[in-house]
């Protein structure tokens, strides 16, 4: 078969913050760049980010610097992080944020005209550069406009099915299809950057859009790269719970950063009962002390509502289980009684509209009902911190699809800064790789044909299952068995269930034609979703401890013996139904001077 074909130096898969930033960098270095996105340009999940991007610029608290940010990130990640990524991130984030303003970003300002910074959970100082509660939109629009003004080639609504190697095993490109026509298209590239984002769509209640199907995780796995920390999944403490139609939709942490508190059905600020030893020294003990902190961080210690997300999500879960939840199974997030309506509308305009229009709740008058929602996967493709290169020559990755940067739990605001710091590094890494010259020459067309045949198979089936049924069952199974609190028996049940799903995937029937067929598109998503679920379940079973975004009921404490390695998954065979192997991958040793920072008492 012959397909529409394009040739580029660098092909970037995914046009969220990381992909766009990588494109800017590779393009600036003079390479030919293609940006491929399965949605329209500017719709990526980055737009959903609300609160801000963390960068130790010290505009509000001059005491802040990269060292404090590094320490916060590592502590938040329960030391499972790739320290080098956390270090580079803390050091480079301020410059990355500032340069956005050269390209047209308009952040909220301090009185003296600098970029305003807001408080967020786990960050010692007010550190999040933001635009109201729509910072992600600002980031994506800024980078999108930059990329367009540079004349970058963008392939929209073009879904990549698989990465393609050359005969020597280097990455040589990818095969995709146009959603509008259903026609296949091949891209040959000297380097490919994965920037495909997350995988929350495999759970029932998630803040992720339909795109979060883990395509990049799966493609990397199938191409020979390693996935680490897949069991570490962030359940954001505050997702909407009612109406059911919007269950899981994100409520920004900015609500708490700006003074909102969590209450149970008895009206009590329960977070004071859930302060872990690790954070006791820096957390307020009384409401009075906590309330002083908002105006002056030296007058009191932090309110417990601003503990890292894993802590808060677990606490909410426990309150609901103890029977102190709200009518729809959440708890209350109250800013109405604590801040003026004008303040709330100015600082949290999208939240105001979101609740007003979707739930009929006026957040300036009533508390919000919220509960944990699958939000982010800390795990992902293992990469080199400096160059963002994976174990496969020619394959790079940046953003949520990578693992290591955030360890076992990500701090709010560290995601957007992750995108721009490592998006740029992936761009540079790909440029260096291309310029070094040892690049792939030709795609192995057998891989292309196999991917195309696999994609078309659901049309040929005489009869079979509706992909929507499989997706719904998978989401319900993962929500029930591999949710926020895990236990061995359920994980084993999940593993068995996933094997059964693997069989069901072979018997999908797609109705209709190839042109813009969402059922077919879902059928092509399902293998990736399954691969992610398998890695998550394997990791969760093997990590017999509780750490960050991974909580085991049967092993409720952190175990120091598990603090020395990541669990790494790799595929043997490269097909979606090839067996997956899991091994221990030792953490990078932290240099003494950085270790000293972590141990510093605060």
């Amino acid at each position, binding site marked *: 078969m012959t397909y529409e074909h394009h040739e580029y130096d660098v092909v970037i898969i995914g046009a969220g913050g990381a992909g766009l930033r990588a494109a800017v960098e590779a393009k600036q270095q003079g390479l030919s760049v293609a940006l491929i996105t399965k*949605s*329209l*340009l*500017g*719709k990526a*999940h980055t*737009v*959903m980010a609300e609160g801000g991007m963390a960068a130790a610029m010290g505009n509000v608290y001059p005491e802040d610097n990269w060292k404090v940010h590094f320490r916060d990130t590592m502590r938040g990640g329960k030391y499972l992080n790739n320290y080098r990524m956390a270090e580079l991130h803390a050091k480079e984030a301020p410059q990355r944020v*500032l*340069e956005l*303003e*050269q*390209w*047209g970003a*308009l*952040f*909220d*300002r301090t009185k*003296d*005209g*600098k*970029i305003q910074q807001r408080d967020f959970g786990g960050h010692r100082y007010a550190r999040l550069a933001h*635009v109201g509660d729509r910072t992600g*939109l600002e980031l994506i*629009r800024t980078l999108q*406009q*930059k990329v*367009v*003004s*540079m*004349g970058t080639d963008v392939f*929209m609504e073009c879904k990549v099915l698989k990465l393609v190697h050359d005969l020597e095993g280097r990455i040589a490109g990818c095969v995709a299809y146009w959603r*509008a026509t259903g026609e296949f298209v091949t891209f040959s590239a000297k380097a490919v950057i994965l920037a495909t984002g997350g995988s929350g769509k495999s759970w029932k209640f998630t803040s992720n*859009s*339909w*795109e979060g199907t883990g395509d990049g995780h799966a493609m990397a796995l199938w191409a020979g790269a390693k996935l680490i920390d897949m069991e570490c999944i962030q359940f954001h403490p505050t997702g909407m719970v*009612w*109406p*059911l139609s*919007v269950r899981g939709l994100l409520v920004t942490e900015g609500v708490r950063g700006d003074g909102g508190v969590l209450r149970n059905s008895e009206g009590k600020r329960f977070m004071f009962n859930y302060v872990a030893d690790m954070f006791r020294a820096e957390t307020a003990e009384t409401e009075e002390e906590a309330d002083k902190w908002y105006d002056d961080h030296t007058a009191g210690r932090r309110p417990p509502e601003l503990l890292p997300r894993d802590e808060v999500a677990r606490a909410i879960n426990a309150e609901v289980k103890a029977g102190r939840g709200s009518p729809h199974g959440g708890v209350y997030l109250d800013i109405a009684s604590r801040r003026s309506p004008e303040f709330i509308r100015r600082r949290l305009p*999208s939240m105001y*509209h*979101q609740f007003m*229009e*979707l*739930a009929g709740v006026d957040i300036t008058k009533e508390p919000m009902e919220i509960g944990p929602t699958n939000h982010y996967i800390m795990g992902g493709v293992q990469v080199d911190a400096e160059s963002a290169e994976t174990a496969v020559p020619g394959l790079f990755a940046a953003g949520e699809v990578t693992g290591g940067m955030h360890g076992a739990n990500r701090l709010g605001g560290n995601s957007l800064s992750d995108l721009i710091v490592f998006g740029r590094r992936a761009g540079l890494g790909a440029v260096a790789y291309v310029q070094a010259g040892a690049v792939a020459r030709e795609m192995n067309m057998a891989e292309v044909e196999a991917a195309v045949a696999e994609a078309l198979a659901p049309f040929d089936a005489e009869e079979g299952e*509706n*992909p*929507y*049924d499989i997706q719904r069952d998978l989401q319900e199974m993962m929500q029930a068995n591999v949710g926020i609190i895990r236990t061995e028996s359920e994980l084993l049940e999940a593993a068995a269930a996933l094997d059964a799903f693997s069989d069901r995937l072979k018997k999908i029937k797609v*109705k*209709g*034609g190839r*042109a*813009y*067929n*969402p*059922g*077919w598109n*879902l059928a092509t998503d399902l293998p990736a979703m399954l691969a992610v679920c398998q890695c998550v379940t394997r990791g969760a079973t093997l990590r017999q401890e509780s750490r960050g975004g991974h909580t085991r009921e049967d092993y409720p404490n952190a175990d120091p013996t598990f603090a020395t390695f990541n669990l790494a998954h790799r595929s043997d065979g490269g097909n979606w139904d090839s067996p997956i192997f899991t091994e221990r991958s030792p953490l990078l040793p932290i240099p003494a001077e950085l270790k000293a920072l972590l141990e510093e008492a605060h």
Partner: protein
Amino acid sequence: MTDVTLRVWRGDASGGDFEEYVTEQNEGEVVLDLIHRIQATEAPDLACRWNCKAGKCGSCAAEINGKPRLLCMTRMDQLPEGPVTVTPMKTFPIIRDLVTDVSFNYRMAEKVPALLPPPMPEEGYRMFQEDVERGQEFRKCIECFMCQDVCHVIRDHEENKTNYAGPRFFIRYAELEMHPLDTNDRRDFIREEAGLGYCNITKCCTEVCPEHIKITDNAIIPLKERVVDAHYDPVAWLGRKIRRKTKTKAADAAVQPAP
């Protein structure tokens, strides 16, 4: 839980027609929930574009009972009783069912002369809240393109698509023109290339904007007034002549060419 009837237009460039679906409706559901239910049961190939389902990405714009709306932000219980009609955006060529080819908007985006700020000082630019606020309103835009869809200049006059940028890009131009750091003068460009004069300020763009951006009052009319400054105001022209030229004349300005 009640049953409702949705009349969904299904078809492609070769033609199409309404198809009726009777489906259940639960408390608090939006039109997109019902479309998803139809996809998951009766019509898995019903084409509909969507992403965030939270009114933040602007993907699911379509026309509900004849009006441009976001499918994800239109609650069923706020629509009048009776069958609900769902059609694709009318202004753009159809791809399939509710999905249209919105590439017109991306072509217009390519033409925008970019921000041209002075070199950035090491510690970053200083800008002030009162100066960034005007632009921030326009940057709330989620690019749902419903303002473009409803604008009769191109909705009813296909031929104008070659010379008219549309409301979405007028707010972009307004944002750049009001940017405190920008040194680019786009007023000639806005008049001649972006077709600002075609707008007859009938305000439908403002009416449909899901972000409640005051497109007409805060962007289009200020742009029209800026064009008047540059082209139709002899007093301002004289003023510029008499005062030392602090601003480049529009015609000579270094409008950055579209990339």
